């Protein structure tokens, strides 16, 4: 095996030789440099393989002595792995760097680059304290040198600050080293570690170690003493930034890893000290990054934050499922995940030349129309956010589990909060890059032209244009070098992800999600048209769904699989109406459906969470495709991931209390926890996903601004995930929480208020998709209410409502999709009179709204009957009354919907509108037939649902023929249907018999106070249809929730503003901050003043 010394020597040697090599010509020299790097990579990879196999470390002593006299270099498997990744990233970085370098700097840059590499290797391998200092300085000097090659003139200022700070850090480190040496008499880390409990436990020793660790921490750029580092990231060329973040920082972390045993041995104060430092370093920059206007600076904040997280992970023994038992696996994976992702992002900033960040319509949509780059960027961002299937996810999971298991609740909060902030700014960046060029990223509610003018262009939904046509962003060619670097990094990430995924122990369903997405992504790459993809997806999903449930008994799991897969398959037919290609659409839909299915099949909390996250991600990328969905998808991502993080917290708390938590899977009550807080967090998480009142502000715009087919899927299928989770966690909610009030009672009230508020808000929407979105919110409220009853009838109702909602909301959204497709507007008052042009759509909407509003004889009434019976049975009288009231409200907005679109006056320019395409109609009529069937024969649906609920509750209703009888009342859907047919036919026949000659006249042939109507626009009563309702309720209808969240957002902004003002840009301030940091560590170590 190659000795570690060789690597150091080779780096140094090559750096010195490079000027000679350069004489061979620039290209040749670059190639040789790359070859050398490749050889390094081969070496380190070789080490990794053999060391993992053997499990021992590779040691080399220099200068012919043995330790402690000599400087010892040592490589463990972890080190080797890190070095491999660092080398590979360096390889990628070199490609990128040499291409971007100016002539003036070219050769020198390579030399400095190799010196930096040398320093990094050294930092990782050395086991000598002073040698650490040397390598630190070597890295530092090479970084300063590299910095000065940047194009941005401000880099000197930044570099100067860096030098001051790094100089101070060196001083601390040296002082510390000196103290340690004085106390121990050796510089070998192994010796010091051994001697630490005795020799360094004295105040002097601790003082020395304090200097030492502060020096190391400063080098790790911990907030709040890291302004200089941020400035550097901002000013440096992105390539250099990538090196700094990926290579240098990674190596520095290893110093801490080396020193940690010494610290831990010397004094118990150091572990909390480093934990606090790590927590601060993680949380503060996340907050500071919120308002950044420079992407590089934002990445800088993110980098330092990530290192903070790694520092935390180094200290906390992780107890989660993945990588259990492998020492340092969590920090290492976090670190490497960060290194690769961050380098990628820096290179993307370089490739697109786009250094803007923040949120606003003027920002460039620089990734639009560059699918490959977008995928790479998305992977990097997701990996950085610690989302599955990227390695960081598993590490974060373990870390959080470890935190909970260790009882570090405060740190848990810090990690989750920091992660959420990171989601906000990184997600925002990604969304702004990939948004449609027309989108000014302000759309979170309906848009109505100020003059009520008919303007087609304005209101055309995203669906009308699609993603593929958008190429407004000037897509300059990406340099070859960047392509190679990004490709390499992405491959690295992909490989790591696959490895981590396979090692994580998650089951097949989760893997199938990824395989599905990947398969359809391949179809996209092969430029297969959308229709073909849709057919493949329909066939595949049908086959998969059938094979998943065939033969299985009807349980919650198979029931929901049927619901998810069946609902999605039917709606996928609508995609056949869209010609051309839509990159990613089918892949993401398939991914979403499969992840929903995976959710049902999950057998451990980890699997549940992975499936949940995958569902969130796929749906997020579906939502963001909408033409004006930027602002909406920011909300969607933020709230969805907040929900996920809450769930993570809940799971970690529950697992900490009960290691057997959540194993089993797919049955009611799997996720039952007896920890009250875990139950509350779980409920909150689900409530966010269900758009419960107060947490709903993401829902309307996300559903409405997504593409039309996506809206339909999201509203009808996706929204049921929350319901599934409620059932999975069912047992958690019944236990009394405080003052004898159980969580389910709170849930019930939240449910009914959501139902009412959603309906109220739907009343006043002009935009049809917003109406339906709010309607979904309201309907989900009903489901929560029914579920919260915790009774047999309640649960049957919840499931019944879920099925019913899937059917009618799918129908309505698809019908609306067809109408929007044909009329080119989403504003209801711009439609009207379409019944004659689109009769089939009308029938579908009519049946849909009858089903929603619960008017007998259609199936909706079954849901209402069950609901009120269940509510009154449980003594929830007021809830029952409120639910009935909101069902009246539902009737109102639904009538408005059908009236404004189909009845009233048809606009002259809609005279030639044709019926929606068959592909859009077919799924609607499939649903319609199902609705009619279960209306005629309610037992077809209710009985299976009873079977599903049976394991939890004994049946409380009985059947007599078609009559379902509860303790309160009865309902015979079949008889009602016949009576209705009877009472309908009798008057109809009478009318046909007695009516005189009937003339079919047009809509303008109305009595109009002896005038004639002027134009259809001025005759169609649709705008502000329920103005009087608004008037009656007055201030009650003010957007309180919106205001609250705006307040939260503004507060976060203020906090961020305040925090970032700390980084004044003055090196002297920074120096002072570093001194204060030292003082602070001293205070923490002392345990206060």
């Amino acid at each position, binding site marked *: 095996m190659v000795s570690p010394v060789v690597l150091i020597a080779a780096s140094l040697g090559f750096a010195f030789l490079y000027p000679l090599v350069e004489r061979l010509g620039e290209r040749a020299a670059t190639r040789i440099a790359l070859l050398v790097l490749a050889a390094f990579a081969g070496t380190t990879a070789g080490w990794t393989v053999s060391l993992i196999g053997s499990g021992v470390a590779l040691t080399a002593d220099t200068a012919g002595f043995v330790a402690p006299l000599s400087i010892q270099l040592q490589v463990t498997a972890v080190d080797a792995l890190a070095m491999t990744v660092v080398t590979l990233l360096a390889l990628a970085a070199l490609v990128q760097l040499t291409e971007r370098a100016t002539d003036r700097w070219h050769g020198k840059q390579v030399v400095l680059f190799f010196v930096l590499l040398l320093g990094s290797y050294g930092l990782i391998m050395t086991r000598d304290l002073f040698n650490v200092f040397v390598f630190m300085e070597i890295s530092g000097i090479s970084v300063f040198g590299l910095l000065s090659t940047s194009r941005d003139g401000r880099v000197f200022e930044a570099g100067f600050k860096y030098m001051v700070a790094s100089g101070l850090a060196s001083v601390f480190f040296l002082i510390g080293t000196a103290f340690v040496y004085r106390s121990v008499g050796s510089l070998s880390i192994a010796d010091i570690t051994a001697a630490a409990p005795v020799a360094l436990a004295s105040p002097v020793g601790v003082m020395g170690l304090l200097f030492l660790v502060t020096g190391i921490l400063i080098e790790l750029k911990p907030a709040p003493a890291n302004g200089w580092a941020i400035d550097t990231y901002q000013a440096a060329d992105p390539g250099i930034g990538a090196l700094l973040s990926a290579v240098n920082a990674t190596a520095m972390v290893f110093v801490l890893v080396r020193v940690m045993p010494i610290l831990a041995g010397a004094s118990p104060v150091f572990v909390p000290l480093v934990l606090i430092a790590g927590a601060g370093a993680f949380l503060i920059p996340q907050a500071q990054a919120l308002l950044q206007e420079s992407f590089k600076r934002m990445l800088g904040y993110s980098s330092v934050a990530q290192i903070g997280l790694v520092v935390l992970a180094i200290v906390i023994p992780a107890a989660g499922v993945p990588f259990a038992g492998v020492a340092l696996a969590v920090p290492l994976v976090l670190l490497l995940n960060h290194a690769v992702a961050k380098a990628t992002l820096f290179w993307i900033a370089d490739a697109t030349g786009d250094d803007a960040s923040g949120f606003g319509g003027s920002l460039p949509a620089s990734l639009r129309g560059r699918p490959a780059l977008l995928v790479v960027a998305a992977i990097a961002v997701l990996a950085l956010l610690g989302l599955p299937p990227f390695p960081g996810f598993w590490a974060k999971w373990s870390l959080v589990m470890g935190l909970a298991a260790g009882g570090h609740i405060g740190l848990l909060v810090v990690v989750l909060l920091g992660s959420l902030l990171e989601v906000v700014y990184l997600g925002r960046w990604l969304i702004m890059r990939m948004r449609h060029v027309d989108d000014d990223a302000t759309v979170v509610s309906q848009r109505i032209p100020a003059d009520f003018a008919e303007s087609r262009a304005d209101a055309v939904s995203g669906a009308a244009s699609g993603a593929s046509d958008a190429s407004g962003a000037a897509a300059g060619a990406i340099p070859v070098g960047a392509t190679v670097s990004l490709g390499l990094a992405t491959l690295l990430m992909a490989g790591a992800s696959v490895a981590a995924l396979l090692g994580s122990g998650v089951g097949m369903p989760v893997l199938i999600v990824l395989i599905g997405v990947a398969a359809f992504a391949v179809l996209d790459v092969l430029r297969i048209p959308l229709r073909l993809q849709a057919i493949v997806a329909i066939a595949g999903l049908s086959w998969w769904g059938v094979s998943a449930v065939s033969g299985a008994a009807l349980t919650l799991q198979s029931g929901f699989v049927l619901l998810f897969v069946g609902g999605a398959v039917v709606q996928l037919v609508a995609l056949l109406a869209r010609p051309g290609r839509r990159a990613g659409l089918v892949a993401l839909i398939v991914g979403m459906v499969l992840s929903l299915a995976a959710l049902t099949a999950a057998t451990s909390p980890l699997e549940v969470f992975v499936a949940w996250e995958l569902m969130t991600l796929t749906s997020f990328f579906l939502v963001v495709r909408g033409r004006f969905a930027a602002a909406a998808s920011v909300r969607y991502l933020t709230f969805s991931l907040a929900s996920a993080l809450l769930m993570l917290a809940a799971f970690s708390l529950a697992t900490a209390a009960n290691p057997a938590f959540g194993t089993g899977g797919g049955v009611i009550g799997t996720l039952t926890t007896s920890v009250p807080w875990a139950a509350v967090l779980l409920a909150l998480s689900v409530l966010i996903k269900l758009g419960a009142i107060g947490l709903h502000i993401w829902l309307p715009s996300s559903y409405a601004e997504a593409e039309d087919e996506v809206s339909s899927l999201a509203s009808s299928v996706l929204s049921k995930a929350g319901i599934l989770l409620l059932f999975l966690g069912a047992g958690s909610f019944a236990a009394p929480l405080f003052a004898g009030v159980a969580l389910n009672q709170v849930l019930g009230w939240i449910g009914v208020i959501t139902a009412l508020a959603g309906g109220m808000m739907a009343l006043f929407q002009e935009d049809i998709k917003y109406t339906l979105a709010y309607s979904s919110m309201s309907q989900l409220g009903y489901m929560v209410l029914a579920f919260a009853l915790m009774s047999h009838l309640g649960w049957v109702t919840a499931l019944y409502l879920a099925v019913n909602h899937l059917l009618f909301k799918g129908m309505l959204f698809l019908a609306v999709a067809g109408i929007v497709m044909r009329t080119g507007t989403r504003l209801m008052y711009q439609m009207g009179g379409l*019944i004659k042009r689109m009769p089939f759509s009308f029938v579908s909407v009519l049946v849909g709204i*009858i089903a929603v*509003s619960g*008017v*007998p004889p259609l199936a909706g*009434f079954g849901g*209402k*009957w069950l609901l*009120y*019976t269940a509510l*009154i049975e449980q003594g929830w009288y*007021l809830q*029952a*009354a409120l639910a*009935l*009231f909101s069902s*009246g*409200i539902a*009737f109102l907005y639904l*009538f408005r919907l059908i*009236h404004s679109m189909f*009845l*009233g*006056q048809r606009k002259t320019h809609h005279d030639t509108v044709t019926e929606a395409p068959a592909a859009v109609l077919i799924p609607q009529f499939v649903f319609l037939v199902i609705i009619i069937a279960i209306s005629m024969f309610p037992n077809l649906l209710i009985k299976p649902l009873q079977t599903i609920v049976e394991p939890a509750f004994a049946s409380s209703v009985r059947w007599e023929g078609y*009559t379902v009888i509860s*303790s*309160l*009342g*009865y*309902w*015979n859907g079949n*008889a*009602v249907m016949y009576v*209705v047919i009877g*009472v*309908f036919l*009798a*008057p*109809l026949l*009478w*009318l046909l018999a*007695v*009516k*005189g000659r*009937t*003339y*079919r*006249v047009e*809509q*303008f042939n*109305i*009595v109009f*106070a002896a005038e004639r109507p002027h134009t259809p626009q001025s005759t*169609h*009563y649709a705008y502000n249809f*329920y103005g*009087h*309702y608004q*008037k*009656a309720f007055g201030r009650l209808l003010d957007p309180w929730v919106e205001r609250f969240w705006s307040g939260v957002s503004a507060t976060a902004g203020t906090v961020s503003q305040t925090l970032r003002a700390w980084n004044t840009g003055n090196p002297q301030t920074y120096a002072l901050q570093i001194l204060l940091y030292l003082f602070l560590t001293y205070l923490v170590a002392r345990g206060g003043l």
Partner: protein
Amino acid sequence: MTQMILTKALYTVISLAVITNYALILIGTMARIRAKVQGRVGQPFYQPYIDIVKSNAKRTSISHGVMFFLGPVFRLAGGLGTYLFIPAIFGSVIFSNFSFSGDLLLMMYFIFFGQLGMALGAGESGHPHSAIGVARGLAQMTAFELPFVLSVVALAAQYGTLSITEIVAAQQGGFTHWAAFTNPLAMIAGMIAFLGMSGANPFSVVVAPQEIPIGPPTEMQSSFLGMLQTNRAIFNGAKMVLFMNLFWGGAAHENLLVAILIMVVKTFLIYLYVTIVGASFPRFKTEQSIRFFLGVPTVIGIAAVVLQMV
């Protein structure tokens, strides 16, 4: 089986004939009583019949489309259905109608059936006033629905059932057993809601003839109008019978004719109450009536429900 169906059909026809004729005569009589109060001769008590015949005798009619055509059919079907889901006379086989198909909840939701159909028909007429009337009507409907629902829930809680027959059964044995006296708060809330339901003053803004000529049926004429007039009678009858059943002990006697007489008297009084209130108060604006219903009557309803809970 066939015989059973035929018998049921016959009973249905009898039941419908009784309620239709009774309600028509009631409307005519009430108009005449109102005229007398105003010092007029007033229209003949059979004027509603003439009007319906006249409407149906129109030689031409116009239709704005399928939904316009079907709107009155829906409306009448809603009225018929509402009546047919209520057991009109307690204990009578002939007048039990189709109450076996569902309970109070079915009836409450079936009211929407006719409203929806009519609203659709009115909507397709393309007349803005129709749409305005519908918007007002629906808004007002949801508003009075709240006190009504509260009173119904209070009743359901009181009697532990949602079956109308059982609610009536529980009220037998003297007027002190009537829900009106055992649960007066629910009765008050329900009877106030009934004012809104009947659409008389002060809640007649839906049809406001001067402002939005006649509201939803602005475009309805000829046979369509005739159906609406018929429905007005049946639907009114159904609602009065419902309220009689819910709060006023229903109509029960071993002798069917006496039972019908009881029904006639009780519904007459209920209708008289609506007429008196209607004659005494001016019309509310929509938002005023919404606020009204969501105010005092709702509070009374909540009180009724809370009384059942404690």
